[in-house]
């Protein structure tokens, strides 16, 4: 059984068309810059009206063109979100810049093998 810790799918350009095609499901996502550096790790929780689609459409409206994204449909969006933040912190030494502005309280630490 392999367990995927990192969200390492290929990036997609964040555009109105790609965001509109996203499922309205719960899950997690990453937004990256044009070079593929992660800017933000987010979650589409149960208060998002159309799940991942709503969240990425909001990201596009706030950030404008030029960003990339990748998503993972996941019912355990809360624990997966914490996990992605901790793995990123382990890999890079810090949170993604837009998460670091408002870090979740009591974020733990992981040392994945």
């Amino acid at each position, binding site marked *: 059984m392999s*367990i995927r*810790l990192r969200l390492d799918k290929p990036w997609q350009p964040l555009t109105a068309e790609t965001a509109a095609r996203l499922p309205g499901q719960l899950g997690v996502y990453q937004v990256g810059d044009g070079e593929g550096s992660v800017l933000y790790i987010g*979650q589409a*929780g*149960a*208060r998002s009206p159309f799940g991942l689609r709503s969240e990425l459409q909001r990201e596009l409206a706030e950030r404008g063109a030029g960003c990339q994204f990748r998503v993972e449909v996941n*019912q*355990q*969006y*809360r*624990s*997966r979100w*914490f*996990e992605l933040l*901790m793995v990123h912190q382990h890999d890079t030494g810090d949170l993604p810049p837009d998460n670091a502005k408002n870090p*979740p*309280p*009591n*974020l*733990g*630490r*992981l*040392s*994945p*093998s």
Partner: protein
Amino acid sequence: MDFEPSSEQQMLIDQVRRFVREEIIPLEAKLDPDASELDPADHARLVEKTKAMGLFGIDIPKEYGGPDIDIVTRVLLAIEMAQHRAGLYVPCYGTFGGAGLAQIFEANEDQKERYLYPTLRGEKKAFFGLTEPSGGSDPARAIQTRAERKDNGWVLNGAKIFISNADRAQYGIVFARTDASKGRAGITCFIIDSDTPGFHVRRVVHTLRSSHYATELEFKDCWVSDHQVLGEVNKGFAVANDRLTRQRIPYAAGCIGVAIAAHEMAIEWAKMRTTFGEKLANRQAVQWMLVDNEIDIRTAKHFTLEAAEKARRGLPFRIEASIAKLTASEGGGRVVDRSMQIHGGMGMTKDLPLERWYREMRIRRVGEGPSEVQRMVIAREILGSNLR
């Protein structure tokens, strides 16, 4: 035994009930349905309130500064504290404080200075590391993490799984095998600082419970000194066993609290909802579900208070704790399930807390000793431990 609350107990129950309804539930309306933490400012504000109520650190023994509330009253209050969306695993979001791990109260004075007192002051958090990938219900045989003598200390190697809070804790209590030839008499309990070289939190273990998650740990040539042994070498099993028995009573209380909340929602909905020209409450099928809820709740409450009362009197309560845990976790699961059925489609949505309780309550039939182990404990007691 008379389980009717005294006037003093009733006053405390009413106080906590008001706190849940007026302070916790309104905040939950703004949180993600799976959230397990309040905004830090809200948390700090509510901690001040529970301190003003004289109920902060409710589980801390009196000699360590706790409010000196007996275990029966604590069970009654725990039932109230669980009656909100996150209440099963994070009653009132921890605003009543915690006592830390019960075993640390048995530590020597040096260990108390380094671990117990900072924990009671809220400066340190701890995890409890017992279960391993090889199993959790039978720790005497399942523990494969080894601790071997080296340089006036011990070197630990092995893994633990389903460990809550290990990624956030400053230390933990970890059980390891120190004598492979002695079964349960070969297990020792260690206190491990989270920054000890060789201690790793490898991953989040994703389960039905999305927010208050568990982790998997690895010990890789993790050296600790003799000062980190809790209790005596090769006598760790008794430490684990005592904790597992004691923990079953508050565990049961949480299940009862959630069951009561789900049942109250179902009653309210049944009185309000009309189908085919008739209120649900007038239909026998629904009435019987509500009656079964009531019976499950009363049964679990009776057995849980009985276990608490025996513990309060200093009598043996192992069998009572198992019966309490069994009836509350199984009965509570049935109550939430029926309450969802009465709510129909709405019961399945994240708009209501029922679906979260349904997922989390399912874990309760496995956590802290599965139903089958509780039945084994009870069977041994009534048949005699030498029967096979």
